[in-house]
């Protein structure tokens, strides 16, 4: 097959990008059967890339000093050459926006378009977590609304008050996520409208007279049973931001809205943290297939293809545990290896594969199997289902168990042999399980009749307690929002109390 070369040499212009995109799209549709959001490709400079890094990759974001801090830090390390910049950033939105760096060569632009605009894009559109938790159509508008809303709050209520609220909300961001899907799919556009309606309602209902009416004698306190009270408040509640937004007694309406914004954004990023291996694996597999096909068709010259192979190899490099560059499993390497392994199992299975993967071994339809995997798994379930013994041997994986109580040292629990496959696989899968990664902290009770004391519980797993300094600081933020005392108890699974924290609220500028 001889095709027209897409480009010659390293230079590209905008028509080239268009040609590259069309060529990739052709392969993505006809051969890989990908189903993607419409693409929007934006070319940016290194400086803009740095900017994007610091607002968690989003094109627009509200203003906060912490982003400035990250910017200063990243700029410093970039200037010193400690850090290279990504070739691209891709945003889970519809249209799916990919940022390409202007200094990429034409080959790199091809790689990046195949990787982001088709690989990631397909994953965003089809994976169940993204479908469940994110609203790709609404996110950009919602961010725009969030930015404007927070700027407006700063005008109305002062920068300091907004900053303090945001600081507190950011501290609790990791615990502002709904982990179980509700009845409704997220719809950020409706969300934005509702926010506007709430404000309008408040304004139309405002009547200063109510403030002047003397309050009558306190109504007889009807003591609720503890059970009833908890049911009314929806306790126990692990989404701390949601709980504060709904029940914190003295928050201003705009503060609740700010908490809500932070919560929505945290929720938007929730699937990404659970699918790093799959997401990168998918994108890497897709770009690898597309680039190979382009080369076969003669659209890519041998020289360009070698350039691609060189950067592809760097991307999927997995250093060994005793290598100085080692920092855990490289999601690109593991993901790509697993995707390729599935392709092998589907097309050329061995006896071992037939035994381990009876459902897919020898099925023949690689893309059908992969598309199904991409749609229905997250890292944890993906590893626990599809990590094959052959791949464990390839990576020479072993499982270490580090018990501080054991003085003799760290135990090698299992290795890549017949006895160990299942245990290694289970341990690796568990290391991707958010249920084990995040601290399990819940609101358990509120002393409504008394001093409105808020009680939290951290259920300690495997003896891993909270970092003391950080826990105190976060709790301080929590108390500032709650405006009454807050306590946090650390309990192990038997119910034994390991540690207790108490925080008293400081006077916030907004409340004063």
């Amino acid at each position, binding site marked *: 097959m001889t095709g027209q070369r897409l480009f010659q040499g390293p230079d590209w212009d*905008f028509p080239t*990008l*268009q040609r590259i995109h*069309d060529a990739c799209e052709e392969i993505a549709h006809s051969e890989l059967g990908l189903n993607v959001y*419409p*693409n*929007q490709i934006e*070319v*940016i400079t290194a*400086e803009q890339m740095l*900017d994007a890094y*610091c607002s968690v990759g989003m094109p627009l974001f509200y*203003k906060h000093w*912490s*982003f*400035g*801090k990250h*910017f*200063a*830090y990243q700029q*410093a390390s970039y200037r010193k050459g400690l850090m290279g910049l990504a070739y691209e950033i891709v945003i889970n939105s519809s249209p799916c926006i990919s940022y390409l760096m202007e200094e990429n060569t034409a080959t790199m632009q091809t790689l990046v378009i195949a990787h982001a605009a088709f690989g990631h894009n397909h994953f965003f559109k089809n994976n169940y977590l993204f479908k469940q938790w994110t609203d790709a159509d609404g996110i950009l508008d919602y961010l725009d609304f969030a930015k404007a809303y927070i700027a407006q709050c700063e005008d109305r209520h002062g920068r300091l008050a907004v*900053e303090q609220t945001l600081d507190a909300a*950011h*501290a609790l961001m990791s615990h502002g996520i709904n982990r179980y899907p509700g009845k409704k799919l997220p719809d950020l556009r409706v969300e934005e409208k509702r926010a506007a309606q709430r404000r309008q309602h408040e304004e139309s209902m405002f009547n200063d007279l109510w403030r002047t009416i003397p309050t009558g004698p306190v109504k007889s306190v009807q003591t609720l049973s503890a059970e009833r009270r908890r049911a009314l408040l929806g306790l126990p509640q692990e989404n701390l931001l949601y709980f504060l937004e709904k029940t914190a007694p003295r928050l201003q309406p705009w503060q609740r809205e700010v908490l809500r914004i932070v919560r929505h954004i945290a929720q938007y990023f929730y699937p990404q943290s659970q699918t790093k291996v799959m997401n990168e694996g998918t994108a890497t597999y897709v770009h690898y297939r597309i680039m190979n096909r382009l080369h076969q068709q003669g659209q890519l010259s041998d020289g360009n293809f070698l350039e691609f192979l060189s950067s592809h190899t760097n991307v999927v490099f997995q250093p*060994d*545990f*005793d290598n100085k560059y*080692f920092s*855990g*499993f490289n999601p690109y390497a593991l993901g790509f290896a697993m995707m390729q392994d599935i392709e092998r199992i589907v097309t050329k299975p061995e006896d071992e594969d037939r035994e381990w993967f009876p459902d897919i071994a020898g099925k023949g339809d690689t893309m059908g199997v992969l598309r199904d995997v991409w749609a229905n798994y997250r890292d944890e379930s993906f590893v626990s289902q599809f990590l094959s013994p052959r791949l464990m041997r390839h*990576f*020479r*994986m*072993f*499982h*270490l*168990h*580090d018990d*501080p109580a054991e003085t*003799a*040292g*760290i*135990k*090698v629990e*299992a*290795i*890549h042999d017949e*006895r160990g496959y299942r245990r*290694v696989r289970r341990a*690796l899968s568990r*290391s991707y399980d958010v249920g084990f990664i995040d601290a399990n*902290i819940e609101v358990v009770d509120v002393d409504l009749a008394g001093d409105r004391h808020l009680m939290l519980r951290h259920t300690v797993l495997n*003896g*891993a*307690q*909270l970092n003391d300094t*950080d*826990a105190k*600081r*976060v709790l301080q933020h929590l108390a500032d929002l709650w405006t009454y005392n807050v306590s946090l108890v650390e309990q192990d699974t038997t119910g034994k109390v390991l540690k207790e924290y108490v925080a008293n609220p400081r006077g916030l500028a907004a409340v004063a």
Partner: protein
Amino acid sequence: MVAIHIVDRRLNPGSKSLENRQRFLRRAKALVQQAVKKSSHERDIKDVLEGGEVSIPLDGMDEPRFRREGGTRDMVLPGNKKFIEGDMLPRSGGGGGKAGGAGEGDSEDAFRFVLSREEFVDLFLDDLELPDLAKRKLAEVESEGLRRAGFATSGSPANISISRTVSRAMARRVALRRPKPDEIAALEAELLVCDDEARRAVLLAEIEALKAKAKRIPFIDPIDIRYRRFETTPKPIAQAVMFCLMDVSGSMTEHMKDLAKRFYTLLYIFLKRRYRHVEIVFIRHTDRAEEVDEDTFFHGPASGGTLVSSALQEMHEIVRSRFRPADWNIYAAQASDGDNSTSDSEVTGRLLTEKILPVCQFFAYLEVGQDAGLTFEMPDSSLWSLYERLRLAGAPLSMRKVCERSEIFPVFHDLFQRRVRQERAP
């Protein structure tokens, strides 16, 4: 085919993070300021202005999260070479049993980042202020300047605003329907070729009427004329001159000169930020004084006795001939090891109090000591005693002793520190 958009964002305004960065600096101001001071101790004065990396402690700038640590941990690692199930690996390194590739702790106790030149200097000089000591009155004397202030209906012919006048005239002509020369010319051309008597009469009458109307409505009327108007506005004095006086007699070592140079540099940076235009005059003296260029000032060899009055006299001459005190803010800094011949004291004192101090915004005397010396051990020199006496008698002098490079900035800072104003007290 799905539509695809390719957008070139490179021309979009960059530095979207600028505001976030400013917020960060504002929040970290106290910390950054300390860091700036600290790093300025370590640097050469020449590089102080260059901005650069500072490191601040993370305290107060951290973003806390609930983080877990300790406990039993399980990890799966790649690259097994020799382990088999059941091996125990010793904890503290050794034999490839690296305790935790997975546990990279957050040991980010200091935060390093780069400040731009402006940010650095801003923070560096933020809490400093120029003193206005004796010359308060002079500082308030302002020269007057002219400023454009719109247009007026009267004024001198030199100030006629032609464009404004012509455009008003045109508006008036259009409004009053002044016949255009083209129209008249067209009618006249028609008249030339016209044979019909009746028509000629009509045309003639029409041409007459138009000409009369054009005459009644002048091309430019006196009411059209506008003059550019100027207002006098007080103009702050935006220039300063800095006199560097230094004793270069044999007793001044290279180290002492270096100290003096550092002080002068700081003063220069500081003045440069306050005034649009800063001039520097270098006067060196032994037993006679001369104005020299910078290089000679710091490096040129000279020998002789020491007469401080000669330098003051020279400065007085230069002020009188080139820097009218009404137009210039005059700053002077004198550096010396303190030697002065006893007979000169009286002349020096008189020159200083009568001639120099009255025209100066600020006069600083820096006594520099030996390299290894200790500031508090420096004996009062003859010049120091003299200035001290004058100061106690009420002369607005600032004086400090310095031995070490590291003391320069604190001394400078001390001299210019923003003081709580006392003048509010009745």
